């Protein structure tokens, strides 16, 4: 792996804080990001599931869409029902391409007089360019939020911590969104995340981010968590990583994300690749994304070959590693559709040897979302 020039890396508003906390910084999506703190990936993961973790996700792309027809206009690019998204609600959806592939996955919130979006860091420039080109001719404006940090607070203690800093946050339920003063700072907060736990994502002005993060970290239950644990947390929760589990070579149907195509959109289409995707949904895909549980203790990493019991190649692992809460290896990958049922025996080829495994239902851990 070539070492990117450190000078070319961007830094988040919390960069100095990460270094002060002893984080190991690595290049990720063009940013210097904390992969772990002195606590280490394993304990950071378990701490998040038991108490609360603070994640800097400021590298992700944040933007607003303004304009009278913003919901209808955005629907030309994504699979979700945006016109039916009520004020204060958030939705997971997908940018698709003309071939039915996935260009990105994203969160859209209806903020009342505008839409608020969070997209993936690695593809945010392409997302912004595509949205601008599509939205402006339709009388909408894209406002890229360069001057905001994004802080995720995740875990069973997140609600108690937030109540202390923003009392009205207790009224929020999973996948709701709205403006909120957090410790006196005007923020935009959603009750969602990427860990399978209850939690919040706090969009905060960049110049106030470090102060807020420090205040959150002063709370007894909160520890800083790096990208390493973020990855094992989301894998146990069965959540896709764009660029690994989903990309332009996978469709929403193959990726088992058909639920992200809202009912009305299934009936009406009108998103890129809709004809192909909706036909594939009717006919069934040739392959499907599934959870995979290796039988032993050896982790199977991304790109591990998957075989059926006869030794025939039937797919590939797209994400895999050790799940600290599962206390064993966990993985996701694509297999032939006929082999997608939980319990189906498989073999994983790790260091030239066939290791027994089976298809597992996702998520690997119980979701702890707060639904009120």
């Amino acid at each position, binding site marked *: 792996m070539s070492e990117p020039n450190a000078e070319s890396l961007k830094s988040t508003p919390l960069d100095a804080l990460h270094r002060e906390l002893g984080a190991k910084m690595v290049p990720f999506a063009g940013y210097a990001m904390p992969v*772990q703190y002195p606590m*280490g*990936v*394993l*304990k950071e*993961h378990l701490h998040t599931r038991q108490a609360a973790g603070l994640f800097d996700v400021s590298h992700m792309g944040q933007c607003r869409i303004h304009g009278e027809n913003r919901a209808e206009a955005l629907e030309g690019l994504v699979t979700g029902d945006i016109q039916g998204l009520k004020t204060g609600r958030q939705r997971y959806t997908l940018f698709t391409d003309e071939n039915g592939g996935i260009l990105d996955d994203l969160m859209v919130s209806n903020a009342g007089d505008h839409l608020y979006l969070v997209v993936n860091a690695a593809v945010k420039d392409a997302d912004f360019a595509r949205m601008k080109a599509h939205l402006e001719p339709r009388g909408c404006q894209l406002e890229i939020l360069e001057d905001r940090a994004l802080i995720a607070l995740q875990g069973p203690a997140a609600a108690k911590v937030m109540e202390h800093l923003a009392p009205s946050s207790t009224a929020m339920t999973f996948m709701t969104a709205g403006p909120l003063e957090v410790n006196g700072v005007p923020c935009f907060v959603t009750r969602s995340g990427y860990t399978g736990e209850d939690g919040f994502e706090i969009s905060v002005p960049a110049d106030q981010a470090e102060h807020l993060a420090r205040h959150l970290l002063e709370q007894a239950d909160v520890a800083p968590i790096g990208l*390493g644990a973020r990855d*094992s947390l989301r894998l146990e929760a069965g959540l896709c990583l764009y660029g690994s589990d989903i990309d332009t070579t996978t469709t929403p149907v193959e990726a088992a994300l058909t639920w992200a195509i809202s009912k009305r959109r299934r009936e009406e289409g009108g998103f890129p690749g809709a004809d192909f995707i909706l036909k594939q949904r009717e006919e069934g895909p040739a392959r499907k994304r599934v959870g995979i549980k290796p039988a032993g*203790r*050896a*982790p199977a*990493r991304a790109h591990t070959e998957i075989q059926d019991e006869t030794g025939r190649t039937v797919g590939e692992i797209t994400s895999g*590693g*050790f799940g*600290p809460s599962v206390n064993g*290896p966990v993985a996701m990958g694509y297999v032939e559709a006929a082999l997608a049922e939980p319990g189906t025996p498989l073999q994983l080829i790790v*260091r030239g040897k066939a290791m027994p495994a089976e298809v597992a239902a996702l998520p690997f851990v119980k979701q702890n979302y707060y639904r009120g």
Partner: protein
Amino acid sequence: MTMWFTKDHEWVRVEDGNTATVGITHYAQEQLGDVVFVELPEVGRSLAKGEEAAVVESVKAASEVYSPVAGEVVAFNKDLPDAPGTVNTSPENEGWFYQLKLDGDPDTSDLMDQAAYDDYVASL
């Protein structure tokens, strides 16, 4: 008792001129992070110097352990597969990987003693 080190951060302790114990160093475990899996060589296996002998995986990545000296495997650390974290907490004692019966004097020409290894790590 003499302890030798490789540039790949394995250690080998020659106990009585005939038996050698192999593991990975404190520096290695620190770089790996939390160890979650080890695969150890079977008793009776004959290992050449530099041959891939074991696998150690952390939450981050997998790496191979190459035998610092040649010999026949006479024991492996049976506790390690169920408690791989021992590699983190006691890399140079309880977290040993396997033991070899040496065939004569081991070739240590490319290995470092403790002082040389400490200098090497300091230079990294």
